[in-house]
């Protein structure tokens, strides 16, 4: 029996050839255990070596292979071809980011925003090494562990309509990662991050569409992180007005 095939319609953009992007169709074997990434690798190896795209671990931990498949942001290493039968499957670069070439996007905006929220342990004073480690109970770990699972794949930015409409929005992953440190008992940087997050471009741009949490492949629930911080930020504002001398 001949190998079943499925068609992929892949977004092509090669600025040195043409400024206008186009779709190119490729027929790939429809193997039961193949994901979209396997199909792209097949295209690059066997059909068209000029196709450009990012990938690395092929197992959903590096966050490199995020793309739009039939209009939804997915990790192409986790999206099985069988699920899109009979096709054709439309593969496009991650939405809301500038396209560099074919399926490769420019992620500088996200990197800048991630850096802006200071995603590291901030201490007023570092404990001397001789005093030993910062201790943390399993319950204290549970407070922030979910938000530490973010792999920076940016599917949440592609899914967020607010980020699409207002590119200045700091975005779901950045806020979730800020929360990862805010809720960490070893961190003392809540005040510094409050100034950054409690701005118009911070948490207050979010209108709780919730799509970020729906598409997150690691169940980080950035929407939950943002709404929790809205409570934190509001409480902090009221506290600063009603008790300006501090608690």
């Amino acid at each position, binding site marked *: 029996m001949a190998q079943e095939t499925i068609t992929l319609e892949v977004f092509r953009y090669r600025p040195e050839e043409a400024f206008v992007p186009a779709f190119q169709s490729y027929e790939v074997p429809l193997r039961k255990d193949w994901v979209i990434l396997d199909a792209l690798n097949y295209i690059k190896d066997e059909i068209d070596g000029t196709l450009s795209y990012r990938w690395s671990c092929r197992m959903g931990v590096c966050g490199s292979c995020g793309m739009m498949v039939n209009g939804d942001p997915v990790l192409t290493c986790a999206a099985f071809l069988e699920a899109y039968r009979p096709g054709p499957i439309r593969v496009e670069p991650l939405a809301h980011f500038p396209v560099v070439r074919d399926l490769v996007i420019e992620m500088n905006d996200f990197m800048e925003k991630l850096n802006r929220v200071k995603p590291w342990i901030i201490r007023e004073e570092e404990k001397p090494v001789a005093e030993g480690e910062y201790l943390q109970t399993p319950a204290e770990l549970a407070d922030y562990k979910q938000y530490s699972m973010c792999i920076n794949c940016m599917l949440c930015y592609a899914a967020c309509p607010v980020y699409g409409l207002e590119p200045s929005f700091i975005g779901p992953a950045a806020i979730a990662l800020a929360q990862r440190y805010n809720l960490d008992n070893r961190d003392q940087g809540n005040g510094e991050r409050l100034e950054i997050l409690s701005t118009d471009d911070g948490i207050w741009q979010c209108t709780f569409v*919730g799509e970020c949490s729906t598409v997150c492949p690691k169940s980080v629930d950035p929407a*939950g992180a943002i709404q*929790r911080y809205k409570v934190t930020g509001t409480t902090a504002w009221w506290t600063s007005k009603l008790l300006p001398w501090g608690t």
Partner: protein
Amino acid sequence: MPIFWWVHKWIHMRFILRELTSVFVAFYAVVLLFHVRSVAVGPEAYAAFLAWLRSPPALALHGVALVMVLFHSVTWFNLAPKALVVRVGEQRIPGWIIAGMNFAAWGVFSGVLAWILLAA
């Protein structure tokens, strides 16, 4: 992004509908303000306002507003567990309890109000 970016996916349409319910919440508030004002103006104005409330267009508007405000409240309470995370040791209080408490409070307050308004 086009101005009608939200028509292509049902989940986006549902989101916009949810946001639009705020218009109907405001409608209720405005009606209440006019209601109170008519009492302040006098018995004739009050009777005229009650007559308007009974008119078909007012009933239709209120019917739509009721559905929208119910949708508003249900979606609001269902999202409450996202903002309120309470941990007991390592366990997190399940979302349905947080949401359920909100719905229960809604029921209790509505019951009390109904008793006050209808028993009088």
